[in-house]
């Protein structure tokens, strides 16, 4: 293990120690069960709270970007202090719980009910294999990355179920769009992490994090994002993740200017809240996987910062990526559905494939002399940058920059 000293730091082991203190007296089969239940409860609790406050943070950041304060009026009950609207998520929760739950008369009742449940269940499943800290991975799987994307692939199915079961033309259009989007973006999403598996030589998330241990020259961490192929893979992954989690600018399934609310049109009350929750859970899970695959997982960026516990590093990176999601949502307008699929098939997929070859070149050159070690940086950067520029030209050919004459 790298940095054995910090492994034994108290804060690092605190969660495991605490858990053992609680369940230590139990006999063996029960102990494993209770440990698993504690892990599930912790994940649900922490990510549920995170979801609540991310919705608030998103609305506040969006507000600030548009030069307004965002929600700031919901008071803390009984003491009647506002605290920047910190209790807004709870007010929203109470509101959605007490709202009337409307099911359209012609709707497919079973599927209409099942869709949000399935969506939430699948997005929660993906949390199981992400390493949250040095000793904090809920389920150690040999094929963890594959598991993650298998569970994640099923979410779009739930979106389809919701759209189809609502018996509403806008919802059905949203369902079609969701399918087209999934088929298009599943491919670059999967292709973007294949290089990581290639370099790390494993599909296990803990092993992938271990493969990113250590620092070059003592300050550049061995994270995959700090290599040409890793950076390209990270960018492709994040773009595809935006599309997979139906986030702006790829939120065509729920494009409110065209489709009312897409697959959410016929949902109200708590079911709507479940959809919302699943969207944020999907975003959190994909961010967590991006951290694991490209951003060194729970590892600290600099050696002297290792005294901060690993789970805090993971949390910090997670919040940074979530901020990125929100920032992108605040900036870019929505793509049209044809632009969206064209972007996936004509730009992201070729680029991801080239990146795969790029990684092979990188790993072949890593075993040779020091000169080759140095040369592989510009070579690999060129291998990915030249297609990027060429494909970008081709993609935006015929699309002149728009001149806003009356703006």
């Amino acid at each position, binding site marked *: 293990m790298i940095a054995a000293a910090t492994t034994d730091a108290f804060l690092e082991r605190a969660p495991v120690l605490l858990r053992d203190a609680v369940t230590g007296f139990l006999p063996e089969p029960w102990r494993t069960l209770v440990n698993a239940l504690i892990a599930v409860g912790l994940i649900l609790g922490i990510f549920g709270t995170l979801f609540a406050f991310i919705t608030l943070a998103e609305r506040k950041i969006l507000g600030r970007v548009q030069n307004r304060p965002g929600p700031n009026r919901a008071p803390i009950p009984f003491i009647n202090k506002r605290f920047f609207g910190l209790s807004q998520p709870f007010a929203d929760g109470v509101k959605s719980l007490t709202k009337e739950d409307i099911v359209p008369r012609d709707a497919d009742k079973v599927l209409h009910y099942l869709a949000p449940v399935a969506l939430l269940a699948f997005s929660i499943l993906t949390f199981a294999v992400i390493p949250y800290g040095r000793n904090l991975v809920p389920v150690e*799987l040999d094929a963890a990355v*594959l598991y993650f994307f*298998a569970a994640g692939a099923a979410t779009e199915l739930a979106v389809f179920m919701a759209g189809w079961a609502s018996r509403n033309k806008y919802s059905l259009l949203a369902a079609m769009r969701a399918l087209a989007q999934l*088929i298009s973006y599943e491919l670059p999403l999967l292709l973007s992490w294949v290089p990581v598996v290639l370099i790390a030589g494993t599909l296990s998330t803990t092993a992938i994090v271990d493969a990113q241990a250590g620092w070059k020259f003592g300050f550049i961490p061995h994270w995959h994002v700090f290599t040409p192929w890793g950076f390209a893979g990270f960018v492709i992954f994040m773009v595809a993740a935006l599309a997979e989690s139906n986030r702006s600018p790829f939120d065509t399934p729920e494009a409110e200017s065209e489709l009312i609310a897409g697959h959410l049109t016929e949902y109200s009350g708590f079911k709507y809240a479940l959809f919302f929750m699943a969207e944020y859970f999907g975003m959190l899970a994909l961010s967590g996987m991006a951290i694991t695959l490209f951003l060194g997982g729970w590892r600290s960026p600099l050696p002297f910062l290792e005294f901060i516990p690993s789970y805090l590093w993971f949390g910090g990176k997670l919040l940074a990526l979530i901020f990125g999601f929100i920032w992108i949502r605040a900036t870019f307008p929505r793509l049209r559905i044809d632009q969206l699929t064209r972007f996936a098939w004509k730009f992201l997929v070729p680029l991801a494939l080239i990146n795969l070859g790029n990684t092979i070149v990188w790993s072949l050159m890593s075993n040779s002399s020091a000169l080759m070690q140095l040369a592989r940086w510009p070579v690999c950067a060129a291998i990915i940058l030249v297609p990027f520029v060429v494909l970008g030209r081709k993609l935006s050919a015929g699309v002149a920059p728009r001149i806003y004459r009356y703006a």
Partner: protein
Amino acid sequence: MNAVLIVIALVTLGAAAVAMTLRNLIHSALLLIASWAGVAAFYLWAGAEFVAFAEILVYVGAVSMVVLFAVLLTRRSRADLTVTPDSAGRAISGFIAGGAVCGVLVGAIVATPMGVGSSPTPTVTVKQIGVQLMGTHAASLLIVGVLLTVALLGAIVIASADRTDDSEDTP
């Protein structure tokens, strides 16, 4: 152990059987997805993790999408909703054929004495699978790759046959 297997088998078979009898194509597609998930559960039960996740990824993630897309793109006509006598006859003969095959197969399985090997679940790691794919099965891997590429291209060509100006992305 066997109880888990029986539950998985019953769920899978039930979902598949109901799916094959339903008139509503979307319902049968969704039920079939459930039965594919059941097959994946069987793989997990048998200790083939990698295959189980691959099954979910390919069937629940990709094939189901294509099936649903095909269902949505092909509007059903009125004729599909009425049971013609011709199709009833076909259904009966289909049941007879299927039942006969099932009877023969089950009979053969029950009658054959099977030497059961190691009872502990054999493990196969992803690394082993990778080594075997790239080693002994490298040729078949290449062939499958070529097959998939050809199939994808062929699917695009077939699905966008009369549209020459704009190639459509329907794999």
